[in-house]
């Protein structure tokens, strides 16, 4: 599989994980009161500020077949280290905080009175989340998804440690660029750089369009 398609596949599956996990976590943190909320918030945001290579190293330590979890997963037919699953896991973890923080802020900006009214109308917390909170926070959810997808697409440091750099299996675009440069193939590397820049620029433009409502006109905020 070409690095471009592999990257798109890995980032898409990572995005599915991120959206499902992110929405569930946002719901839990919004709905329930329990000690350690701030700790959970900090832990899931950590990959945003840590060097990705540190995250990759931590994943390697957890999932290496040399320890209990990694060995058990391997007996179940799940190989995380040096596999596509490892690349997806790395991208999911690195992209997660961008989605989580954007969606949490969007959900937090909803007037609590709107959800209160829904409660008095007899709606369950799940129904309120799906019919009121998510639709009112859709801009944040879409923006967070695009940011997380773009980040997953560009993931390098964690991926190379946990998934390696196996052509056709885990060699995503950033890893392919690295390899091409290492072998002195600057033309090939440049071609991939153009692809990834065009793709992420397009995605970020979409974010700008969603948040500002204008794609080509830059308006000064007054």
């Amino acid at each position, binding site marked *: 599989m070409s690095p471009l398609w592999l990257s798109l596949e890995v980032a898409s599956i990572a995005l599915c994980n991120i959206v499902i996990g992110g929405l569930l976590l946002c719901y839990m943190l919004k709905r329930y009161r329990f000690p350690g909320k701030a700790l959970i918030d900090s832990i899931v945001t950590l990959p945003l500020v840590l060097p990705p290579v540190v995250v990759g190293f931590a994943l390697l330590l957890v999932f290496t077949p040399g320890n209990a979890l990694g060995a058990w997963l391997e007996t179940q037919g799940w190989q995380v280290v040096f596999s596509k699953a490892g690349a997806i896991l790395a991208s999911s973890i690195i992209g997660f905080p961008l989605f989580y923080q954007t969606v949490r802020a969007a959900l937090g900006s909803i*007037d609590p*009175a709107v959800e*209160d*009214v829904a*409660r*008095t*109308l*007899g709606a369950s917390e799940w129904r309120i989340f799906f019919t009121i909170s998510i639709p*009112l926070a859709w801009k944040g959810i879409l923006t967070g998804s695009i940011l997380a997808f773009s980040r997953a697409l560009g993931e390098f440091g964690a991926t190379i440690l946990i998934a390696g750099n196996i052509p056709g299996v885990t060699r995503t675009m950033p890893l392919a660029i690295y390899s091409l440069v290492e072998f002195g193939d600057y033309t090939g590397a440049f071609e991939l750089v153009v692809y990834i820049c065009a793709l992420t620029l397009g995605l970020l433009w979409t974010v700008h369009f969603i948040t500002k409502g204008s794609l080509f006109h830059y308006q000064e905020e007054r």
Partner: protein
Amino acid sequence: MIYFDIAVQRPTILVQGKGTLDVGITALTGASGNGKSTLIKSLAGLIKPKAGFIKQDENYWFHHGQNLFVKPQARHVGYMPQGNIIFPHMSVLHNITYSKRGDEPLLAHILERLQLERYSHTKAGNLSGGEQQRVALGRALYAKPCVLLLDEPLSALDWTLRHQVQADIVAIIKEWNIPCLWVTHDEEEAKAVGDYRWSFEKGILQGS
């Protein structure tokens, strides 16, 4: 009828009140931060008091001694918080029928009585302030409430609209024939709408 005798601890004040909400409009006044919204939210089940009880006829909604607290979902109150709180992303029809307690004849009656028939498929967020207010009232009434709790129902409207909307809401509440607690900071408004008058002073309910 709603009976209550509660104490609610808020960050800056202890709110205390005892009273009976009878059929008709009870107008509640008081300066900001004195406990008006706290009382309404406590009756709706959105805030848990620290002591006392709340009951609707013979059913307790809250009883501190028995460690009983009925969730807002099960209280059947019609609640209109401050501001035009509609579901802006839904049509007028979906706003009104958000509660599953109403039925077709009630919906038809509400749409007609509140003059919302021609807006039924309009997105509620695109309506004017007065129309949104009617949607919020219709939505509360569709849930077949046993009490209406209105927190500054006219505050989001401009002065020219207020008198008309006020008269409309009062007429509709009278038709429904249920208890209604109408919170306002405007003494004139309280005088005009209230069958009974309560006020809050330094967190203590007076006149009840």
